[in-house]
């Protein structure tokens, strides 16, 4: 090994590896469902090629893929709806009708398929781009939109947080904060509480989601450490830690976040199980996440899954990626569209047609537009809500401050 000196800098892995650079694994969603596997064993699990063909059909599995048509269709519907919704929100932001938006464009498989692998009793501690999981679980679209507008119908935050900070206790989706990685140790605690209150193997599990950039935060490291060490009732925590590696954190490529060979390989150092999956392949994501969920539900060692994908859009509506990255690479990744891939797969299966996709898009667009028309009419939150929920009861000093704020409320509008 050559010494790393200033004169002889290590060669950085290309910031944007091309799709074919990834070592492929098409046989097992869990090549490394063992603790102590080496980093190079973490091949990237794939089921479908970019054109939707099964790379290596497995005759032992349903449809040769291990995914039922009903599951595939359910995912596709949510993925398309997510795309339509994101596009609409981005347009709204450009028109100045909403303040901010973080889209999941190109990451619909990583979001929806991972969510699809969970049961409704399972909980999600999300990062910014997991909102689609919540919708996929059945959370009403009007609540999603009300959160973005922060109006009276915003049951997630009562207009207290920026857009995309959704939350629902009923649907097991913990209200996001804007702070990177803090959700990860919390997910460990939630899983711990689940393990204390429900016996394996039939118990809820918790998913902690994070982005590639945020894996550099201390809280990520702390969560991985705790995830390995905590073993209530002598079993592994019912916990999945899940990174959508979209290869960018605003303008910073993943190669500048870590010198580790892959993010998934980090699992090994903490005694966790690591797995790596093609994040643009919904079937592969579902297979890996289902295997992982089943494993931890039964009491296995927590699993850290890396879904490799690409942020084909801007970071958020306040970002312009052409300033820091080569958008030709983005175009290459955009061509690996997860929706197209799943769509083509279903076409090949003979249960889906181009016209169906078109109809689905139109239906989703109509749903978004009509819901939007209603939600935009909802009045803003009342002044009292500024002082509620700081504590369980409004304490005297906040009652006094509310009275003071009331005197100026009209002028503030």
């Amino acid at each position, binding site marked *: 090994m050559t010494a790393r000196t200033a004169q002889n800098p290590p060669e950085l892995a290309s910031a944007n590896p091309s799709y074919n650079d990834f070592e492929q694994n098409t046989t097992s969603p869990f090549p490394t469902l063992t603790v102590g596997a080496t980093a190079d064993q973490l091949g990237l699990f794939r089921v479908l090629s970019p054109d939707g063909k099964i790379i290596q059909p497995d005759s032992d599995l349903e449809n040769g893929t291990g995914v039922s048509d009903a599951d595939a269709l359910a995912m596709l519907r949510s993925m398309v709806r997510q795309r339509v919704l994101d596009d609409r929100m981005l347009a709204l932001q450009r028109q100045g009708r909403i303040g901010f938006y973080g889209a999941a464009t190109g990451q619909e498989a990583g979001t929806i398929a991972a969510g699809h692998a969970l049961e409704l009793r399972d*909980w999600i*501690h999300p990062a910014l781009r997991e909102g689609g999981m919540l919708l996929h679980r059945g959370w009403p679209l009007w609540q999603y939109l009300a959160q973005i507008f922060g109006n009276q119908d*915003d*049951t*997630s*935050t*009562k207009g*207290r*947080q920026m857009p995309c*900070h959704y*939350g*629902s*206790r009923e649907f097991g989706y*913990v*209200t996001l*904060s804007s*702070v990177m990685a*803090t959700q*990860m*140790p*919390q*997910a*460990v*605690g*939630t*899983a*711990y*509480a*689940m393990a*204390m*209150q429900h016996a394996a193997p039939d118990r809820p599990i*918790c998913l902690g989601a994070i982005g590639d950039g945020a894996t550099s935060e*201390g*809280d990520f490291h*702390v*969560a991985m*450490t*705790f995830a390995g*060490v*905590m073993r*209530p*009732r002598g079993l592994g925590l019912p916990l999945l830690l899940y990174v959508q590696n979209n290869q960018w954190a605003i303008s910073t490529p993943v190669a500048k976040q870590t010198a580790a060979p892959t993010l998934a390989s980090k699992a090994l150092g903490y005694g966790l199980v690591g797995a790596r999956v093609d994040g643009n392949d919904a079937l592969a994501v579902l297979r890996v996440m289902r295997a992982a969920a089943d494993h931890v539900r039964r009491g296995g060692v927590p699993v850290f899954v890396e879904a490799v994908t690409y942020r084909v859009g801007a970071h958020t509506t306040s970002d312009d990626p052409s300033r820091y990255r080569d958008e030709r690479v983005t175009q290459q990744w955009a061509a690996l569209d997860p929706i197209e891939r799943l769509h083509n797969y279903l076409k090949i299966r003979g249960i889906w047609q181009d016209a169906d996709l078109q109809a689905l898009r139109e239906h989703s667009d109509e749903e978004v537009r009509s819901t939007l028309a209603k939600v935009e009419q909802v009045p803003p939150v009342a002044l009292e809500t500024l002082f*509620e*929920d*700081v*504590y*369980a*009861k409004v*304490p*005297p*000093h906040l009652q006094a401050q509310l009275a003071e704020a009331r005197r100026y409320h009209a002028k503030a509008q």
Partner: protein
Amino acid sequence: MATMNIIQAVGDALHVAMQADEKVVVLGEDVGKFGGVFRATVGLQQAFGDDRVIDTPLAESGIIGAAIGMALYGMRPVAEIQFSDFIYPAYDQIVNELAKYRYRSAGLFPSPLVIRTPFGGGIRGGHYHSQSPESVFAHQAGLVLVAPSNPYDAKGLLLSAIFADDPVMVLEPKRVYRGPDHGTNWGSHKKSEVPSGDYRVPIGKAEVARPRTGRGIAVSLITYGAMVHTCDKAAELAAQEGIDVEILDLRTLVPYDLERVAEAGRATGRVVVANEAPRMCGYAAEMSAVIQEQCFDWLQAPIVRVTGWDTPFPYTLENDYLPSPARVLDALRTVAHYR
């Protein structure tokens, strides 16, 4: 009823709470097998098992982060931070997460949990085993802050905290853990009589730790934690000089007992506020401000603060740093004789 020191009272509260509710868990560094570096959790793991009394890895943000997750899912965690000086790795989890959870989630995800942590100097602990962080956390809407000064309150406040609906930070006055003012024995103190079983000291209520006698110039002395005992000595000395001191032990720092504080200001018009932490934006500054807002027409003298200096907490010179009875006495004289 038994005579206890603060450590024993804390341990007793934890026993009572864990017995009463299996959702209560204790977690922190060295709290399990060993019983904590101050021995507050001795015997808990033997009694309740290592799933409920958890020796965690050495990472404060993990302790608080995991405790938050547990609380979100219905448990009642009591996290110990070994010394409040070491709370800062968890600062983000406390300030941005814990304090705001109920609010940011429109009330859907409250995270009621307790953080117990010893604070204050006087144990020859240098920079990093002596600090008083209360104003840093008092500034964070959503947190409740309590600071008992004696065994009775320590148990009663901790039990209130564990079963409260809000996150509560319990600042434990480590200098007087085993006896008032460097003593090793709480035996003769009236607040060392601790009832067995469950009882609660209400959050948000101050208490008169030393009433006025009605003889001499009336002064109100407002303080909390270990400083209650320093102030008591000063009041004793002041009495000999004809200064009649009422000590108000705040017990809860957020949300504090505004009514009782204002009453103290109006009753005497002469107020001293004492805290160990640095003066700059310290807790005494809030007290001074609110008293002049609420009691201006009653004030007979400027409010005087007695505090630690605006330096890092020292090692060898800690007795020069800590407000001593002599410094408090001088402040009492200043306000008593102001014309």
